[in-house]
């Protein structure tokens, strides 16, 4: 039953197990999701902080160059992020087209994604749009404020988090979708397997996606942090460079101012006074002493403006001739040639001690100096030369020249006026390398950066003024220097001396994240593989389970088949043995034969049990609803069992509660009988297994009406005994097939131990429950319930019709039951009431009956005395008290086990009128009562001797109809053997022709399947013909017995035979007994 149940709904179990596995998978997925979410959240929070820091840092920035850098940086960010997004999107197969190009004014992106149903997706899209717009707006609006840029920066940085989130959402959505798919196809196993594989694939894909997300996240993180570090480095460089540039500029300007002041001094004291207050000595001394104010100058000199016309006069005045600057040989100061003839000269008249060698040198003769002088007097400001090798010191340097005017010129003086007013020139030489060196000495962290200073007046040929090519060439900061000469442009290039250090800060945390990602990936991969294996194993196990169940069913079917096959020959064995016993045998032979017969019977009962069990297990047994009379059935059961019970000395009694309806609809009678037998197999087996030691114990089959709802009746059947009981340790396995309470080979009680298991299954089929209560030594009570239908009393099934008349007669009789046991007395009363005896009194013993019920005894018609309460002396005394009565009651003795001798003795004593053997049954009781009451019940003929088949058939005309020659021949031979006169025909038509009334034949054996006209058709026609004849001649009824001959004897064929007017059927080939029984009905008249 359990197997059948499992077979019938394997889906149930499957789904259960599946649910379990699905839950596990779900759990893992949720866990995975949580981990990823947590990672994302924590990292994005961290990033947010970084962004905010950046924001504040950016706020502090004020210089435009920084802004530019920021913006460039930003652009880089967006570009590379777009690339990252591109790759991500390609991973998730969401992007159908993605274009990105960098144009002159910014980045234009066109992104089209596959439209998904999810709303989240749309949201994402919207966000992306916003971002894109922001981006484009930033591209167009390059002059956007700092705040705007910062916001944008923030948004863009947030952007790839959105991307990650979006990817996760998409993945999650698809996962959920996939799961839905999974749940919708649970039915089909194949599909399920596919599903499993798909689910596994999905999990793998998800894992891959997660790992890719993790890796890209780590890379992004690293990139971001690194970028930040680089940014900070750049910022530091900028700051330092700017600082240096400012300091240099300031210093230079200070020096320049001083030179300017000196020029004014010269103008005032040399030209303003006559005679001059300054001579070379004074100038040299003064300049030497004020040199601290011009730390950057290597020396100052004053040159006078001398026209050619004035040259001679000037030379005469100073006592030296104007010399020309010689560039070829700078070392030889002495070897200055006299200056060539020119319009104008600028001979140095005063010079600082350090440059005293240039006194009398014409400054106009030097190319650089000349230009400088000309520009200086035209501008009225300090002008610088381009860097050149300074005389003598061989360092690169610049000359600062100031024009000295004789008058105080207004600011808006024209160039002409300035030239006219010029009387001399003050020059100062700056030694750039030493200058910058000195400057850098003063500043902190001079080691970290290297500084180059360039003159960029001529953009095509930049002149390096200071610095070396060492340091990290990759990044450089350029600061412009303003030395107060608008004509000249100078720049300061700063760079770090060392290459940037390996950014551990940027590497380590993302590295850890990467490692964690891979670890998690590894773990989840393992888990997924495990799930896959488990799922595979589960599938295998389900398959194995199905196969095992199939094998079980096959076993049952095999058993059923084999049992059936064994039963067939066994019937032969038993029949032969029986026949053998009927023959003339001596005592010994008879004993052997009886033993063999008994063994055979045991064997066949065992086979029957096995067959039943197997039938039930293989699910072949089906119950059919047929109305039946429970009480009558139970009578049969008790009569069947009475023999067995008597053998063991057990008293058997049946009691049916009056609440139980007369007719109930239950299984097919056959089946219910079987079932009853099954349940009484319980008792049988209990009987066989546990003989009641207490022989006087009472047995009750209590049928208690339990529930009665509309047309369904639930019956409670209890089988009680007072036996040895079932040991407590064996009680749990009592319903297991082939399990005996005592399973040792030397067990006391025989039996297969299968009966209870069969009973259980039968009860289960009847939607009932079976159970028992047992106490060792006290007895066992088995009880079961079954659901039956109820039906109106129907005479066809109640068997009561036979006794209806008798019961009428017994109405109104009064009876007294004398029994020492109450329960037994109750049972007797129940039986009496069944046969119509309405008022039944009970007395516990003869003595009490005679004393207490004396008055009642007068009107008693019947006194039933149990043999246990029987006591001859008492009875005599009891009976003597009755003699006065006019109509003495009939005395019936109820005996359980009485030897025939004892019985005859009691009968012959004349003390009782009748002895009834227990268990009580209706038919027995009715017969007995009829006899005792003398109501004319004639003795029924019993056990009619079976007549010889030969006698029966001798001389009878029999028609055999069969289309097959062989069958005809055989049937002919068989029937001939019994002395019948056989005529054979080979078709239905011929038979019909032969069977026209008036009939010559006593009987006809008709094959069913014949060509042209089959047996049914032929019979129908014969019957029609007979009908007609009968109508014509009222006097005679024509009816030839027609018997079907058929090879397959099944119920349906039988019914069909009867329906078309046949009288019965015999199976081919003929068997003597069957033939006899079917033929006897017609000839035994």
């Amino acid at each position, binding site marked *: 039953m359990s197997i059948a149940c499992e077979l019938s709904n394997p889906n149930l179990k499957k789904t259960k197990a599946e649910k379990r596995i699905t839950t596990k998978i779900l759990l893992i997925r949720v866990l995975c999701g949580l981990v990823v979410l947590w990672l994302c959240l924590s990292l994005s929070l961290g990033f947010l902080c970084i962004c905010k820091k950046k924001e504040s840092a950016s706020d502090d920035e004020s210089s435009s160059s920084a802004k530019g850098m920021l913006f460039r940086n930003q652009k880089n960010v967006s570009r590379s992020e777009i690339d990252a997004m591109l790759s991500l999107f390609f991973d998730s197969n969401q992007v159908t087209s993605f274009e990105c190009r960098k144009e002159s004014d910014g980045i234009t992106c066109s992104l089209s994604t596959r439209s998904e149903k999810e709303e989240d997706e749309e949201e994402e899209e919207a966000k992306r749009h916003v971002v894109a717009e922001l981006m484009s707006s930033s591209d167009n609006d390059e002059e956007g404020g700092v705040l705007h840029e910062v916001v944008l920066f923030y948004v863009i940085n947030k952007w790839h988090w959105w991307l990650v989130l979006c990817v996760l959402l998409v993945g999650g959505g698809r996962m959920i979708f996939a799961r839905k798919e999974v749940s919708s196809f649970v039915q089909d196993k194949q599909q399920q397997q596919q599903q499993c594989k798909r689910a596994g694939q999905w999990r793998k894909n998800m894992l891959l996606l997660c790992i890719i997300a993790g890796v890209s996240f780590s890379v992004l993180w690293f990139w971001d942090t690194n970028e930040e570090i680089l940014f900070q480095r750049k910022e530091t460089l900028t700051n330092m460079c700017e600082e240096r540039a400012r300091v240099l500029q300031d210093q230079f300007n200070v020096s320049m101012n001083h030179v300017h002041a000196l020029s004014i001094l010269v103008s005032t004291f040399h030209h303003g006074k006559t005679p001059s207050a300054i001579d070379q000595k004074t100038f040299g001394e003064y300049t030497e002493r004020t040199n601290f104010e011009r730390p950057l100058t290597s020396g100052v000199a004053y040159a006078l403006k001398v026209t050619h016309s004035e040259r001679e006069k000037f030379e005469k005045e100073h006592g030296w001739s104007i010399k020309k600057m010689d560039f070829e040989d700078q070392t030889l100061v002495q070897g200055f040639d006299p200056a060539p003839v020119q319009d104008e000269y600028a001979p140095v008249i005063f010079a600082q001690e350090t440059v005293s060698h240039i006194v009398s040198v014409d400054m106009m003769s030097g190319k650089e100096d000349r230009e400088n002088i000309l520009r200086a007097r035209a501008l009225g400001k300090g002008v610088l030369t381009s860097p050149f090798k300074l005389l003598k010191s061989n360092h690169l340097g610049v000359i600062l020249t100031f024009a000295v005017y004789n008058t105080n010129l207004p600011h808006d003086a024209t160039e002409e006026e300035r030239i006219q007013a010029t009387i001399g020139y003050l020059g100062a030489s700056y030694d750039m390398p030493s200058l910058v060196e000195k400057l850098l000495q003063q500043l902190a962290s001079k080691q970290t950066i290297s500084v180059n200073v360039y003159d960029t007046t001529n953009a095509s040929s930049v002149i390096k003024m200071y610095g070396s090519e060492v340091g990290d060439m990759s990044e450089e900061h350029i600061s412009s220097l303003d030395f107060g000469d608008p004509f000249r442009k100078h720049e300061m290039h700063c760079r770090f001396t060392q290459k940037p250090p390996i950014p551990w800060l940027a590497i380590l945390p993302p590295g850890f994240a990467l490692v964690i990602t891979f670890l998690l990936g590894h773990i989840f991969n393992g888990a997924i593989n495990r799930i896959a294996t488990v799922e595979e194993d589960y599938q295998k196990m389900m398959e194995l389970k199905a196969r095992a169940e199939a094998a079980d069913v096959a076993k049952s079917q095999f058993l059923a088949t*084999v049992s059936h096959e064994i039963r067939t020959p066994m019937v032969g064995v038993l029949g032969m043995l029986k026949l053998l016993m009927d023959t003339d045998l001596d005592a010994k032979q008879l004993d052997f034969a009886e033993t063999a017969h008994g063994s055979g019977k045991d064997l066949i009962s065992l086979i029957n049990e096995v067959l039943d069990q197997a039938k039930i297990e293989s699910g072949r047994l089906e119950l059919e609803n047929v109305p039946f009379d429970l009480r009558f059935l139970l009578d049969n059961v008790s009569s069947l069992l009475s023999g067995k019970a008597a053998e063991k000395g057990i008293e058997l009694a049946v009691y049916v509660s009056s609440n139980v309806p007369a007719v109930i609809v239950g299984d097919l009678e056959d089946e219910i009988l079987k079932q009853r037998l099954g349940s009484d197999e319980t008792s049988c087996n209990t009987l066989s297994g546990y003989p009641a030691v207490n022989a006087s114990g009472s047995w009750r089959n209590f049928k208690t009406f339990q529930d009665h709802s509309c047309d369904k009746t639930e019956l409670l059947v209890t089988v009680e005994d007072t036996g040895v009981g079932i040991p407590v340790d064996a009680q749990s396995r009592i319903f297991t097939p082939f399990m005996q309470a005592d399973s040792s080979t030397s067990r006391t009680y025989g039996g297969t131990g299968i009966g209870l298991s069969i009973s259980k299954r039968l009860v289960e089929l009847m939607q009932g429950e079976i159970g028992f209560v047992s106490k060792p030594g006290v007895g066992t009570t088995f009880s079961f319930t079954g659901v039956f239908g109820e039906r109106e009393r129907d005479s066809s099934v109640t068997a009561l019709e036979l006794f209806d008349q008798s019961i009428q007669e017994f109405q109104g009789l009064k009876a007294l039951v004398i029994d020492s046991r109450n329960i037994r007395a109750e049972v007797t009363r129940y039986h009496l009431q069944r046969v119509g005896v309405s008022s039944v009194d009970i007395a516990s013993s003869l003595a009490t009956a005679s004393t207490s019920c004396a008055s009642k005894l007068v009107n008693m018609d019947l006194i039933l005395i149990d043999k246990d309460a029987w006591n001859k002396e008492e009875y005599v005394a009891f009976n003597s008290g009755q003699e006065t009565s006019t109509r003495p009651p009939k005395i019936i003795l109820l005996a359980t086990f009485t030897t025939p001798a004892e019985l005859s003795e009691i009968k012959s004593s004349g003390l009782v009128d009748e002895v009834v053997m227990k268990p009580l049954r209706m038919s027995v009781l009715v017969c007995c009562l009829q006899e005792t009451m003398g109501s004319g019940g004639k003795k029924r003929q019993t056990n009619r001797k079976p007549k010889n088949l030969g006698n029966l058939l001798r001389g009878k005309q029999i028609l055999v109809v*069969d*289309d*097959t*020659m*062989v*069958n005809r*021949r*055989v*049937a002919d*031979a*068989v029937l*001939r*053997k019994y002395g019948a006169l056989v005529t054979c025909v080979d078709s239905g038509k011929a038979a019909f022709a032969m069977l026209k009334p008036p009939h010559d034949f006593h009987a006809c054996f008709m*094959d069913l*399947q014949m*060509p042209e006209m089959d047996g049914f058709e032929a019979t129908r026609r014969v019957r029609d013909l007979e009908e007609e004849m009968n109508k014509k001649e009222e006097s005679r009824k024509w009816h030839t017995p027609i018997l079907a001959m058929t*090879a397959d004897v099944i119920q349906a064929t039988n019914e069909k035979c009867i329906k078309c007017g046949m009288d019965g059927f015999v199976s*081919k*080939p003929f068997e003597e007994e069957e033939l006899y029984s079917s033929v006897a009905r017609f000839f035994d008249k």
Partner: protein
Amino acid sequence: MDTLVAQLQRQFRDYTISLYHQLFWYVKGFLDDQFTELKKLQDECSPDFVAEVVSLFFEDCEKLIGNMARALDQTGNVDFSLVGSSVHQLKGSSSSVGAKRVKGLCVTFKECCDSQNFEGCVRCLQQVDIEYKSLKAKLQDLFNLEQQIVQAGGRIPQVDI
């Protein structure tokens, strides 16, 4: 002479038993009780009863198998009802004779017909053909033995199965 008869008789007995005997639980004997019954029916009035019936049976077999083969030969639309009725007849006659194996095959054959299983029908037909032929050969041997015994002047022994 007697020894020859005795030998023949023993041979006859053994052979008969082998025909009934079941080799394994799944290999049925050729004959069953019905054949014994047939033998019992044979008496002085009809001395060749068994041989007559058996030869009738084999004629029947031949005819029916021919019918079925023709019916099954028509690929495409096989008339299973025709085959089925033939099988039924064969089953009836084989059970009358006691040809156990043929009968058993007929049961399977009938099932195949009912389920319209063409392959099964063809297979069963082949088996039936083989079975009935082998049975024919066996019975022929048996009758030959009988004749030899009779010619040798012996009695055909009663074989109890």
